[in-house]
């Protein structure tokens, strides 16, 4: 992806411990907001959102003694800019229960323009009419292009447009860490 950009400088903005604490807090906030509602469903956006949703479910089990079902969603077919389509394969969506009448927390790693969230909201509506849909993200980096706001946020990180937030999770990346990477333009793509 974006092979005409090379990494210029990178700094750690969240350590593994920071991520763990942020997700613990978000788990408590979800329980507080939903009053321990056992109908709660977590839906992660592929791929890292799913890992975060699984961690939230583990926390909720720890704090409240029930495991909410976790779904995974690939909203790519609902995007208005399907350009990454041919680069990355479309992944199967799996929603284990009907969302009809249930509170749903949509989970992603980074909130940026809000376009992924919009696509995900459209995609979710085909799986039943949820009673509420809330949104949780580990990092909010700003630059919204749509009227979308998060309900739960791990950390606000002010960024420039030419920076990239890289979320690494031990499930897929060996470490738990969030980096802010400044990208240098090394060529122009036609």
């Amino acid at each position, binding site marked *: 992806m974006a092979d005409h950009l090379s990494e210029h400088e990178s700094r750690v903005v969240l350590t593994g411990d920071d991520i763990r604490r942020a997700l613990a807090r978000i788990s408590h906030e979800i329980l507080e907001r939903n009053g321990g509602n056992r109908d709660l469903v977590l839906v992660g956006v592929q791929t890292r959102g799913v890992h975060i949703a699984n961690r939230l479910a583990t926390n909720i089990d720890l704090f409240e003694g029930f495991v909410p079902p976790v779904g995974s969603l690939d909203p790519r077919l*609902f995007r208005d800019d*399907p350009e990454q389509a041919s680069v990355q*394969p479309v992944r199967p*969506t799996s929603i284990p229960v009907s969302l009809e009448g249930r509170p749903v927390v949509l989970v992603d790693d980074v909130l940026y323009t809000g376009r*992924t969230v919009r696509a995900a909201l459209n*995609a979710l509506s*085909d799986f039943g009419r949820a009673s509420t849909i809330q949104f949780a993200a580990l990092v909010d980096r700003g630059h919204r292009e749509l009227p979308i706001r998060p309900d739960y946020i791990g950390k606000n990180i002010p960024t420039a447009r030419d920076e990239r937030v890289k979320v690494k999770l031990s499930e897929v990346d060996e470490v738990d860490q969030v980096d802010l990477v400044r990208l240098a333009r090394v060529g122009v793509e036609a």
Partner: protein
Amino acid sequence: MTTRDEVRTTKPDNGVADAGGGRVIEPDAQPQASAQIRHLLDVDSLTPEQITTLLDSSEGMLEVLSRDVKKTPALRGKTIVTVFYENSTRTRISFEEAGKILGADVINVSVSASSVSKGESLYNTALTLQAMQVDALVIRHPHSGAPHFVARYVNAPVVNAGDGLHAHPTQALLDLFTLRQKLGSMDGKKIAIVGDVLYSRVARSDILGLVKMGADVVLCGPPTLMPAGWRPGVSPTETGMESVRIAGDVGEALDGADAVMTLRIQRERQDAGHLPDLREYSNMYGINRRRLALAKKDAPLLHPGPMNEGVEISSDVAHGAQSVVEEQVRNGVAVRMAVLYAICSKGRDRAAGTDE
């Protein structure tokens, strides 16, 4: 379908003989980015990575097919035209369903009811469709190379839905997808292909796809229906394909096979003198329970359809536990969704990295 003359003229570039060699000439030929596909004209010009990406995407598309609400807006506002110069039910309906699930508008041009029956040339038909701003063209044509010809003159991406004796790339992809579901990796798997290899664009595309994905292919069929010089014991240097073998009889072909594909025998072949008798063909090459038992236990049995039950395949195995014919049809829709999505979603400007 084809006369002997056409057979001769189309044979040299049939693709099997020069595996991986024949590049498609494209007027606006840009160096293809590794994963991007402009046209889908044959299997030759696909890399193993591109095939893998399409098959991975097909998994996601198959899930969409199983939803209660089988509709996404991915290709909303796009117009896909299918032009079939040959009869087809499953391929045309499959493309139509695939396009509609992705939200595109699909228009089917029936050749008998179109200007083609008034004598319009393929070139003019292509230009007319281009002038109507179609976003993708799906073409089936009795002459090998017709989709390549059209791709040279239109800007829209072109998908080959079967051309003459040459290629049927979406059938190859759906066969690869079905085999991957059943066998996992293709690497080193023995796949037996039985029947009319010479006239079958399905066989040609399947062989190329299987070889690219690392499978060992064993072919078996009447000598009159095998490419010239492809006889039992022929060396790979003569066929140009190292992992393709030609078996002496169907028992040898099926022995220990991980999967069995049988090809449709076109009844025209008997009139053309390639086959003395369909019953003799059935006796020597037809897949029945006894022969299928020679393959590995639970080896999937594939057929591209439509089946001539009692000729190349017996009814009991055609509808038996090992038959994956219906899965092939369902997978065909998913694979064609992946193909249409890949070729249609190109061409819009998008700044790199606008979302994480």
